């Protein structure tokens, strides 16, 4: 018998965790000497109050959708892919190479090609830790952490020594050509007569990210492979008994995960910067962990929490602009969300379970 109804597990626990994180953040803001209510107003206004704000909120959310989905898929196979950051960096390299060296006639084809390139590079970066986990038993958390650092070194080398245009001091690639420019929300909505601010970097890859959510939902709950991934995640012994190959599932889950993390590049590298710069990922790989935990590894939950984190990022930037609250406030909030929804899950869950069991007794 379940200890709790499903809605409590899916909605109530994340909500309570979020409230706890928000309460502590409010205390921190008070301690800095700012008004938390004012801060929230400023954040809502700055992130959601205008199409300018939405342009940034949705841009950030697109990044977090990809990395959040990436972490979720690995979670379903009971693996903790902490290497989304490195995979997204490599994805950026894949997207940049595709955009720089192939003369695309139209952005639609370029988007397809860049998605593929980014996904392949990201997946390849996840493949080695996955193989080592499946065949040699090396702990995937440690190897993916190591691969994050190796990715940073690789990217640094490639940008400084190989891809940097001659005469440029900046460790970045040349600008991509105009033909691979992805339409922004402004450009997409203008023909429909909807005025959307020009400055916001949100672009067509937001739609790709939503499509990825749907695809992952179909994959995990409506295909044989998805069933095998979940079965493997629930019990490796059980999966083995059912004839599911642990090696195959580990590899496939991590390849999908790495590919998704890599695909973030179509948003930040191809859509926004239109060239590959150093540290293009800006920690989005780690935020993916918070997003996946908060969204309970369900694509719809990931969608909601990605929007929430997009809001926090844009709102946090506004806060840093107008108040004494530095940008790092978002990192604190993000850490608190990971702490409460991930590590201290039982702290919220145990008392709730007791309450529900007590309620049931009263009814019975």
């Amino acid at each position, binding site marked *: 018998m379940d200890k709790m109804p499903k809605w409590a597990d899916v909605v109530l626990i994340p909500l309570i965790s979020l409230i706890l994180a928000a309460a502590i953040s409010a205390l921190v803001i008070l301690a800095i000497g700012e008004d938390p209510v004012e801060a929230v107003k400023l954040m809502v206004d700055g992130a959601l109050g205008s199409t300018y704000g939405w342009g940034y909120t949705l841009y950030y959310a697109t990044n977090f959708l990809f990395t959040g989905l990436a972490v979720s898929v690995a979670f379903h196979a009971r693996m903790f892919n902490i290497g989304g950051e490195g995979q997204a960096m490599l994805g950026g390299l894949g997207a940049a190479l595709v955009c720089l060296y192939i003369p695309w006639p139209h952005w639609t084809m370029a988007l397809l090609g860049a998605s593929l390139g980014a996904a392949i590079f990201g997946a390849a970066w996840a493949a080695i830790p996955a193989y080592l986990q499946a065949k040699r038993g*090396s702990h995937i958390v440690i190897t993916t952490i*190591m691969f994050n650092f190796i990715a940073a070194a690789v990217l640094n080398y490639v940008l400084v020594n190989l891809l940097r245009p001659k005469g440029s001091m900046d460790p970045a690639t040349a600008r991509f050509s105009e033909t691979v420019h992805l339409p922004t929300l402004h450009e997409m909505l203008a023909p429909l007569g909807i005025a959307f601010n020009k400055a916001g970097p949100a672009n067509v890859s937001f739609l790709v990210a939503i499509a990825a959510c749907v695809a992952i939902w179909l994959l995990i709950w409506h295909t044989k492979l998805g069933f095998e991934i979940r079965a493997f995640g629930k019990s490796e012994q059980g999966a083995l008994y059912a004839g599911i190959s642990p090696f195959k599932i580990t590899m496939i889950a991590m390849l999908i995960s790495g590919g998704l993390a890599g695909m973030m590049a179509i948003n930040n590298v191809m859509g926004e910067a239109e060239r590959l710069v150093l540290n293009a990922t800006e920690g989005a790989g780690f935020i993916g962990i918070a997003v996946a935990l908060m969204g309970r590894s369900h694509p719809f939950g990931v969608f909601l929490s990605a929007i929430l984190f997009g809001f926090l990022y844009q709102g946090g930037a506004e806060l840093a602009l107008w108040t004494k609250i*530095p940008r790092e406030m978002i990192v604190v909030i993000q*850490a608190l969300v990971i702490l409460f929804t991930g590590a201290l899950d039982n702290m919220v869950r145990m008392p709730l379970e007791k309450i529900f069991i007590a309620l049931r007794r009263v009814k019975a």
Partner: protein
Amino acid sequence: MDFLTLIQVLDSTIRLATPLLLACLAGLFSERAGIFDIGLEGKMLAAAFFSAAIAAVTGNVWLGLLAGIAASLVLSALHGLASITFRGNQLISGLAVTMLAQGFTVLVAQSWFKQGGRTPALDMDARFGPITFPFADSVADVPVIGPIYSELLSGHSILVYLAFAAVPASWWILYRTRFGLRLRAVGENPAAVDTAGISVVGLRFAAVAICGVLCGIAGAYLATSLQANFVKDMTAGRGYIALAALIFAKWRPWHAMGACLLFGLLQAVAIRFQNIELGGITIPVQMMDALPYILTVVILAGFVGKAIPPKAGGEPYVKER
């Protein structure tokens, strides 16, 4: 490369290996007791900030050290609460601890000192200064032995000597005391320890606390000895290199010292030479940066002996089952 350059590189190897060694031994105690800790980075960072801040405000570096240790212990307690008391995921908890430190240090630094997330530079007497060995100056001119004694061995801060003294101390505690035996047992088979009537929770909290103290010293060393103030993200992945060194050393104290010296040497060489010419092939500096991580992956993959972590590592202990 002449002899003096060699001595200088080795000298900076010792300086750079010190924070790695302290953090590595910290991880050793925690992981030997079955608590994985990927939050070493965060604890060092918090300690670096609070030691530099308190040393700057009070002018007393020892108070700074204590503040650093206290900050690190608070994060340790949080990690313990999440992973021992509430049996949460230790890896997620470690990550949260690191992020918390990354955000909070800059946040507090900015609202306290208003210098863009850094602390004011410390005077020489608010830092851990060099300790000069007796006769170091007078033997400096003696060939070979002179530079080794006066440059390499003498002239480090007290925390450096403390870090290297902690290696035999850790070995002795882990392998020659009752507490150490129990600590190792709780990382391998907590049920057996429980059956013997010893508190699993107590032992694990003790291990996590030792880890906190050592990370605190490591962070204080970074901000008050190696450098003279706190800057944003100043640990720069050292916590993860320490973790790598721990795996490289296969969770053993003396080997940990070897691994940390090796990784310290890599850092020292990378700082001093940038790109290295080796028989016509140029080794880029990025390769030196990535080498500790690559070596660790190779070790983890079991190509050079197998690195087997403590058996009960990462598993929360549930009494009734």
